[in-house]
């Protein structure tokens, strides 16, 4: 059983539940005291000791159900649970069964199949899986290898020899056996698929996320958009966890004379109670100007999604979208779901040819007062203004008012300044200019912006 529990812990890690050694020890102790007789209680005990949040509980519950539902051998009608104990027992049985089998000269596997001893077959598969270290399976491409290895462990070689012999001597039995063999192959395949589901999930997920993180946002396929949104949400959660921790109040430092005197006014300003100066840390105030024209639109989409899911970290976000002209979109983003909001924004200003000069002028006219010395202004765009007036002087004025101006450009640095790109001219008035084409770059950019307020 210990072995089985260890495999379960590994499967749990695959399901995204963090199981530390200490937790696995706790789980072992818990299982030892509750016993294994009741499956429901075993499930509860594992859930209590391993999962540490509601999401983890859900994932672990599903993982438990999957783990303890072994695939049945083909033609099996009764769902008989098998475990390692049975597997060890049947190893010996397989050998002894050879003696009393009627079809002399057949290998143990053939006999086992012919006797249709489902429990024994399942157990044999389990042992063979153990020997083939099936729990190391990581990628779906490995399915064939592992199926092969398991069958080999079970003695498929001998079975094939038997089959060949039987075709000559006893065709009807051979036919039956070959049918059974096919069934066995299928069962093993199922077992391997299930194992992949259990143990390979984490790796597969990591690999997929890694690819997704480094994929250019502007060119991802429509089917990946949902995955990307999930990834962005994950990034948002990580940033929140990192930056939303309550800041430690400074307890010592310089005496705040004014506050001390005021507080002690009741005692004729004899300072019974002291007040200390505290360093006040602001939460980031962000004004985001996003180009939603053409190729930049998708990046803006994800950027806005990210920045608006950072409520705990960022105290005030106002976002504006522009291509030909500029409008405020904060409310649309707050009130609607991500997809709807984006569709709405696009229908209002999207997909025109971008005019940076005009858009900046719009911003200066109507919303300039929203930029204060505490504000970080983020401009997201490719700085290609179609040879129109770039309005760089307006950006200068914005930069003079703001704490910082950060320009995120989805284009590679190579393209900056070529063609109608005005990036070098804008860069003069920005504190930071960085490329921001992938989810990873997006995360780093936002993380840096938030970190400057610490």
């Amino acid at each position: 059983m210990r072995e089985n529990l260890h495999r379960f812990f590994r499967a749990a890690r695959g399901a995204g539940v963090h199981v530390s050694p200490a937790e696995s020890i706790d789980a072992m102790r818990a299982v030892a005291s509750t016993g294994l007789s009741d499956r429901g209680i075993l499930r509860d005990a594992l859930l209590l000791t391993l999962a540490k949040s509601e999401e983890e509980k859900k994932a672990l519950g599903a993982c438990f159900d999957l783990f303890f539902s072994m695939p049945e051998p083909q033609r099996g009608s009764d769902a008989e649970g098998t475990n390692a104990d049975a597997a060890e027992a049947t190893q010996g049985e397989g050998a002894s069964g050879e003696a009393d089998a009627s079809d002399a000269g057949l290998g143990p596997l053939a006999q086992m199949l012919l006797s249709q001893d489902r429990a024994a077959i399942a157990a044999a598969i389990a042992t063979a899986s153990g020997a083939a270290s099936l729990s190391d399976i990581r990628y779906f491409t490995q399915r064939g290898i592992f199926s092969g290895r398991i069958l080999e462990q079970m003695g498929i070689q001998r079975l094939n020899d038997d089959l060949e012999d039987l075709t000559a001597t006893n065709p009807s039995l051979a036919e039956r056996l070959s049918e059974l063999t096919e069934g066995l192959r299928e069962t093993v395949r199922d077992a391997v698929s299930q194992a992949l589901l259990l143990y390979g999930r984490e790796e597969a997920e990591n690999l997929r996320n890694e690819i997704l993180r480094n994929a250019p946002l502007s060119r991802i396929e429509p089917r990946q958009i949902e995955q990307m949104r999930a990834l962005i949400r994950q990034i948002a959660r990580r940033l929140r966890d990192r930056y939303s921790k309550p800041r430690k109040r400074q307890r010592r430092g310089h005496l705040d004379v004014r506050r001390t005197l005021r507080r002690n006014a009741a005692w004729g300003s004899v300072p019974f109670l002291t007040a200390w100066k505290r360093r006040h840390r602001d939460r980031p105030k962000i004004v985001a100007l996003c180009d939603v024209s053409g190729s930049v639109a998708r990046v803006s989409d994800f950027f806005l999604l990210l920045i608006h899911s950072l409520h705990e970290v960022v105290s005030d976000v106002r976002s504006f979208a522009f291509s030909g002209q500029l409008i405020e979109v904060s409310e649309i983003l707050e009130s609607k779901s991500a997809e709807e909001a984006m569709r709405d924004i696009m229908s209002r200003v999207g997909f025109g040819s971008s005019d940076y000069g005009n858009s900046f002028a719009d911003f200066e006219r109507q919303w300039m007062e929203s930029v204060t010395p505490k504000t970080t202004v983020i401009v997201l765009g490719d700085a290609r203004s179609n040879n129109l007036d770039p309005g760089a002087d307006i950006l200068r004025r914005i930069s003079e008012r703001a704490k910082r101006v950060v320009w995120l450009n989805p284009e590679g640095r190579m393209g900056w300044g070529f063609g109608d790109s005005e990036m070098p001219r804008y860069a003069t008035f920005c504190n930071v200019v960085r490329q921001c084409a992938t989810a990873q770059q997006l995360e780093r950019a936002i993380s840096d912006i938030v970190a400057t307020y610490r």
Partner: protein
Amino acid sequence: MQTTGAETVAEHRPVASIEAVESGLASQGYIASRQIATAVYLSEQIAKPILVEGPAGVGKTELAKAIAGWRKLKMIRLQCYEGLDEAKALYEWKYAKQLLYTQILKDKLGEVLGGAATLHAALDQLHDFGDVFFSKEFVEPRPLLQALEQPGGCVLLIDEIDKSDAEFESLLLEILSDFQVSIPELGTIAATVPPTVILTSNSERNLGDALKRRCLHLHIGFPDSRLEERIVESRVVGISQVLRRQLVAFIHEVRTLDLKKQPSVSETIDWARVLVLLQASELGHDVVRDTLNVLLKYESDVEAALPHVTSFVAKAARPNVFGSAP
């Protein structure tokens, strides 16, 4: 007081089984789901605190009270809030008493020091003296230290841990894993009998991994209708079976709505009491309308629920397909 001795012997027997926990809690009027009972049983078996999470009013705090009542242990409660610190949670020196004693012992001090021949000898004597003032006599135990010092063990309830500062969590770690605290002047104080520790949280902020790792994590959600009916039965005296079933069915319908604050078990019980007081034998449209504010705590929620009242009452009145619960 004579009986307490016998009881302390009895209550230290380990709990025999999960069923025993269930019936024990039930004797206190706390109807536990099997998962809750398993958690309590396990916390006893492997000596771990339970961290209970879940929406407000599902009986997180009640659980601690029920355990204390059932095992006849003293319950010590530490209510967490922002700014709670060591001095209020763990221990504090009785400064006033220390000062007072030095004043009173002033003459004695002179006597003691008067006998010293040299400055060094006087200092040595003074050192001995200082230790007197930093002894257990002058420690004011706060809830956490009190819990460790209970001779017969106790139930320690650390309520709403998510309201405290993140630093406070670190303070708890030593107590939760080893049931001991270190006071620099006195050394380590270990629990005579490890207390049963229950922490509750409304998930207002994410707790640290270190804290979570040291606890069994129990999530109490809204109970299913069968369990909730049993809870109402045990908590509300004189409620008819019909009303009970309808009431619970109605509340389960309400929980499907998108509300600011879902009605939880405590609201169910309150509402049931109100209905019994109003001598309602069945759930009627008018009665529900009049008493909806017991169930829902926000005006906007009441407004959201009002249009559905008629259909929910009708649904609840329909006899259960599986027959009414026993």
